[in-house]
């Protein structure tokens, strides 16, 4: 129980998000109407992805510094889970776009940035598969991971601020839009972020354990 309290917290928060997310009142805004509830899902996916990719970066750097195989495993599985959440984020965003902007995909800076980030990390997976030797794989993948992370920061944080976008709250400040921070959505949104991030970390830990078992079997 001592080690797993956060998993129970995760489940509770997610149940709360799902129930309260669909039942509580939301502000009526033009274009968005009820679809603003997607914020509890779509934005949280990107938060989880950012957290997982940061974990991946940190463990990549640790692997380069110390050369422990465990660090490389953590970095790889964090990137895998991050990619999964990124794909979910793209899918939820696409669904949201269909009902607010009328198309599954638009020519928007943030969308392009997100898609290219996904491509970058897919290339990371391809690179990992292309190197059979374990020790070399870890180091080369770590170097590429650092590059991908820097480029991701450029794409997701810098470019949207430089130009206008269809995303709500953009044209200047893409982080948190002005309208949702001063009403009841906050009550569901913050727990949702924490819940989805915990879920991401949970999935990552399970993946790490599976990978460790695979490593043991191979040895």
């Amino acid at each position, binding site marked *: 129980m001592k080690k797993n309290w956060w998993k129970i917290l995760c489940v509770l928060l997610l149940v709360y998000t799902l129930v309260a997310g669909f039942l509580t009142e939301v502000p009526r805004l033009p274009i968005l109407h009820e679809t603003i509830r997607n914020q509890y899902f779509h934005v949280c996916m990107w938060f989880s992805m950012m957290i997982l990719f940061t974990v991946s970066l940190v463990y990549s750097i640790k692997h*380069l510094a110390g050369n422990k195989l465990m660090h490389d495993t953590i970095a790889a599985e964090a990137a895998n889970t991050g990619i999964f959440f990124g794909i979910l984020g793209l899918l939820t965003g696409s669904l949201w776009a269909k009902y607010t902007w009328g198309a599954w995909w638009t020519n928007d800076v943030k969308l392009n940035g997100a898609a*290219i*980030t996904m*491509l*970058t990390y*897919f*290339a990371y997976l*391809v*690179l990992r598969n*292309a*190197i059979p030797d374990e020790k*070399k794989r870890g*180091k*080369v993948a*770590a*170097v*590429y991971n*650092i*590059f*991908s992370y*820097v*480029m991701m920061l*450029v*794409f997701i944080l*810098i*470019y949207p601020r*430089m130009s206008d976008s269809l995303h709500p709250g953009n044209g200047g400040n893409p982080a948190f839009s002005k309208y949702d921070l001063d009403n009841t959505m906050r009550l569901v949104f913050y727990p949702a972020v924490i819940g989805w991030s915990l879920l991401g970390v949970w999935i990552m830990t399970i993946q790490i354990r599976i990978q460790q078992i695979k490593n043991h079997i191979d040895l």
Partner: protein
Amino acid sequence: MKSAKSKQNTGLPTFGYIWRIRNSYLRYQSQVNMYKEVKYLIQKEILLEWRQRYALGGMILYVITTVFVCYLSFKNVIETNAWNALFWIIVLFAAVNASAKSFLQENKGRLLYYYTICSPQAFILSKIIYNVALMLTLSLICFAFYSLFMGNIVDNMLLFLAVVVLGSVGLSTLLTMISAIASKANNNFTVMAILAFPIIMPILITIIRLSQNAITGTDFSFNLKYFLVLFSLDVIVGILSYLLFPYLWKD
């Protein structure tokens, strides 16, 4: 080493003072050595390239042929979007080929030899400088032939040339590093292409936007933020490459 508290007043230099002089001399010496290493490595690159000139000629021919093919298909491009896009596609593919060649043509034996004689920083620095020079030459040649065949519709020439220069520097630096990473994956050109294209996107998007503005003739102050982004991307990529290459080096 004597501590600061027990200072002698003999008038002679203390041990700590001599140690500091020795350290700064060693640092100076290592910097001088690095400079010499880089210089010799660049000379070696140029010599090797010159001995097998066909590679260089191949790249220039590739650029000219592609420009000619574009000319045959389009005859006369008036739309700035298309002109810009075609130019940068040609430059991008020339850059990928040129940088891929730099690492992928070295076999294991030669790399091992380099490992024994020079430091990784000197090696990557020499590769980057050589590739940057090569890419600058290629892109300027490309621009010359492109304006010859497809017409020169650039309004703000100085800005466009600045974009070409900064962009080539950034592209070649990043592609050299990606080529170094891909060379560890069994010298596969496909892996290099897969790795390169997503990561090159920030630089490429900034270049395209800037050059589009240069063609339509906006002035410099409007584009300053893009220039800053491009310049800082170049610097970041350069520093990252310099710091991370030693980890790739230890085979």
